[in-house]
């Protein structure tokens, strides 16, 4: 039986001022797998990804039409709570961006936003920090100094922390915008491993520029071009037998 999609995009268009960055895009993202978003620079991958937690709206000039249904609710409805949307839809950025506060505070940052002060328990938060850091295998290297400033960690550790700080919020969906592009080869390998370990419990949508990475790490792939989705299919199929000529050209490295 086909599982219900956790993110369902229907005829979604987005404008930055007068420039239309997404042209009536439709796609369904399945839970429990990693969907890769690929395409040449400027095709709208980041724009699409940033629409799923509505963080694009911080630029005042963004207009949208269409629907994005996440877990049964159109998130573009006016009555949607941005805070609870972002609790369910976590995001990992291209450059690791831990907050310039302690490791501990980074992990509980989201939880503190979502629970009123009197309902927070120290012991519960300690527990949360430990399990989140264990899940990204960062616990052993930082457990002795959780008060250390998170921005002092190595880039790889920072990116792991950025993944770990989503976990206490128990998101359903994790968005990743080229999560490895700031890392070296070892870092890439370990973050990819981590993402693969996490995938069964989440819906992961990952933008990548790196064909090899898309091939290694994603289960399904979406190829975008000039604000449109050209092809969406299982990754294997896309790489071995692309249906669209443009997809084939891109995969062979004939676009930028």
């Amino acid at each position, binding site marked *: 039986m086909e599982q219900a999609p956790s993110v369902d995009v229907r005829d979604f268009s987005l404008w930055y001022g007068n420039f239309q960055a997404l042209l009536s895009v439709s796609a369904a993202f399945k839970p429990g797998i990693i969907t890769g978003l690929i395409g040449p620079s400027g095709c709208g991958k980041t724009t699409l990804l940033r629409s799923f*937690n509505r*963080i694009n709206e*911080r630029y*005042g000039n963004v207009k949208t039409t269409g629907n994005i249904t996440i877990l049964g609710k159109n998130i573009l409805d006016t009555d949607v709570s*941005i*805070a*609870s949307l*972002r*609790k369910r839809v*976590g*995001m990992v*950025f291209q*450059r690791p*961006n*831990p*907050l*310039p*506060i302690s490791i501990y505070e980074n992990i509980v*940052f*989201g939880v*503190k*936003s*979502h629970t009123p002060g009197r309902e927070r328990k120290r012991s519960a938060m300690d527990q949360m920090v430990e399990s989140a850091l264990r899940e990204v295998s960062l616990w052993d290297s930082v457990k002795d100094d959780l008060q250390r*400033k998170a921005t*002092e960690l190595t880039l790889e550790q920072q990116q792991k922390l*950025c993944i770990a*700080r*989503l976990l206490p*919020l128990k998101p359903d969906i994790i968005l990743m915008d080229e999560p490895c592009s700031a890392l070296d080869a070892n870092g890439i390998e370990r973050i990819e491993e981590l993402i693969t370990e996490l995938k069964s419990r989440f819906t992961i949508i990952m933008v990548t520029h790196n064909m090899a990475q898309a091939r290694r790490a994603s289960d399904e792939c979406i190829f975008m071009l000039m604000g449109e989705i050209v092809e969406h299919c299982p990754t294997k199929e896309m790489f071995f037998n692309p249906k669209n000529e443009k997809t084939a050209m891109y995969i062979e490295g004939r676009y930028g």
Partner: protein
Amino acid sequence: MPSSHPSSNTPPAARKGWRAAVAGIADSIEKPVEVLIRVCGWSSIFLVAAIFLFVLLGAMPVLPKIEWFGEHAFFTSTEWHAKDDHNPSYGVLGMIVGNFAVAAVAMLIAIPLGLAAAVYISEFAGSTTKEWLKIGIEVLAAIPSIVWGFIAVTIIGPMLQKYTGAQWGTNLLNGGIVLGLMSIPLIVSLAEDSLRAVPDSYREAAMALGANKWEVVRRVLFPAAKTGLVASCMLGVGRAIGETMAVLLATGNKNQIPDSLLDPVTTLTAAIASEMGDAVTGSDHMASLFTIGLLLLIITCAINLTANVFIRGHKKKGAA
């Protein structure tokens, strides 16, 4: 065709000679220029030292005659009769207390308002509003001190009398309000700079975790920009302590320890300014005013040094 450019119409050989000459000049002036630049660099230190020396020398004649601590001494008395040649008394306690009291009231007003305005400008205002507000802040900063003095005397004073029943309109509160308003632009522009310097990725990180704008300010921007914000407030304090003209007009210039916010007070700066005109060059009176100046210089330098040490300390900690 005549031309002032030797390179355009001189034969190649001559051109080479000309180039060499220029290079030679460049070489020969390199050293003096370097020295000049170094002198300019160090001049700030020399200037500070020279000013200290100048003020100290000015104060020198009267320094042995002043009793510093004790019952009716410099630091313990509010009696200031420096003009009296036969039986002078030098008590600056009232000025010191007045100075700090006025500055404290000013900061109680300027720090919250200044930081709030900075947060609004950098985080909440749209881009057009932002431009206009920034222009407004700059204009506010450019208002001459004496104009603030007029405002204190003709607007704030009568208002205070009307609403608080104060006997005099020019008093500690008036001075504090005026100084507060005067310090706001400095605090706003420095605080806004340091908020703007916080990388946008921090804001996005926090927002993506579900924080609202206000939480971003409180939990991300304030900690991230803490050093700059504290420094902006300290420089505001420095400004408030060193300000003269407006304070002279606004405080009522009375050398006493205030009992309430509505008592007239004076400050070190106002006392100097109000007596300087009568002081005869070379007299003890003049030297005593220099003594007050020396004290003021020490206080403001101490505040600035503290601010600097604070910033350095934080930078080091951040880098470690």
